[in-house]
């Protein structure tokens, strides 16, 4: 009986601790650290980009809205790259081949980072797919955006322009 009681206690404790309640990465907070390999294997640290406006996007090949967001991110990188915008797209596929197949159909003209473990998504508190973070030149999160819809493009671009002090 005592064994049963302690089992009960242990499993209730596991229940209470299991789905750990974590707070989201909020606007105004300093961006969490990010260090991941690029497509060619060389690591990139977010801290190296301090002073630039960075748009960090977490995506995966199986995510429908991610596919829609790529042409828009290509356009943003092309339009604002010379003004200091850096787009980092963190791939969260467990299999690299899935990401490659996606990229063959949906080319990306911005920096790709690979995190098959999903550890970065955990530390950035990604709430949905895709989730993107606009980080100002001061290294602080300006905007957290989950999902991607056609009608949100205008507002997202305005936020990028504001971050780049173009508006």
């Amino acid at each position, binding site marked *: *009986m005592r064994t*049963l*009681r302690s*089992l*009960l206690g242990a*499993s*209730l404790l*596991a*229940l209470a601790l*299991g*789905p750990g309640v974590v707070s989201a990465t909020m606007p105004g907070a300093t961006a969490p650290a990010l260090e991941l390999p690029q497509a060619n294997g060389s690591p990139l640290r977010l801290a190296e980009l301090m002073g630039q406006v960075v748009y960090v996007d*977490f995506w*995966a*090949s*199986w*995510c*429908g809205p991610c596919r829609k967001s790529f042409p828009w991110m290509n356009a943003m990188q092309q339009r604002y790259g010379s003004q200091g915008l850096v787009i980092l797209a963190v791939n*969260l*596929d*467990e299999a690299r081949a*899935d990401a490659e197949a996606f990229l063959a159909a949906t080319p990306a003209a911005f920096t790709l980072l690979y995190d098959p473990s*999903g550890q970065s*998504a*955990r530390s950035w508190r*990604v*709430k*949905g*797919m895709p*989730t993107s973070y606009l980080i100002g030149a001061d290294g602080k999160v300006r905007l957290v955006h989950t999902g991607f819809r056609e009608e949100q493009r205008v507002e997202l671009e305005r936020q990028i322009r504001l971050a780049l002090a173009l508006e």
Partner: protein
Amino acid sequence: MNSKDRFAWRWRLNETLLVFLALGLAGCAAVEPWQKAKLAQAGMALDFDTLGSRLHQQVYLSKEAARGGDAAGGGGCGCN
């Protein structure tokens, strides 16, 4: 078995069931958004033909004249 023994036995059974319930629940894990690759596959959808089943529901409800709960009442014309 007297009534006191029976009570003790029932209590022990209940407690054992509770332990297994708690153990089972503790086995549940939260699936994070980036871990939903398999759940996002078409075969995992509850409904494999969303548009088709909406059409079917529209026709069915209007023929039955029994639209209710989710929308305004209908008259069997299939027009709402």
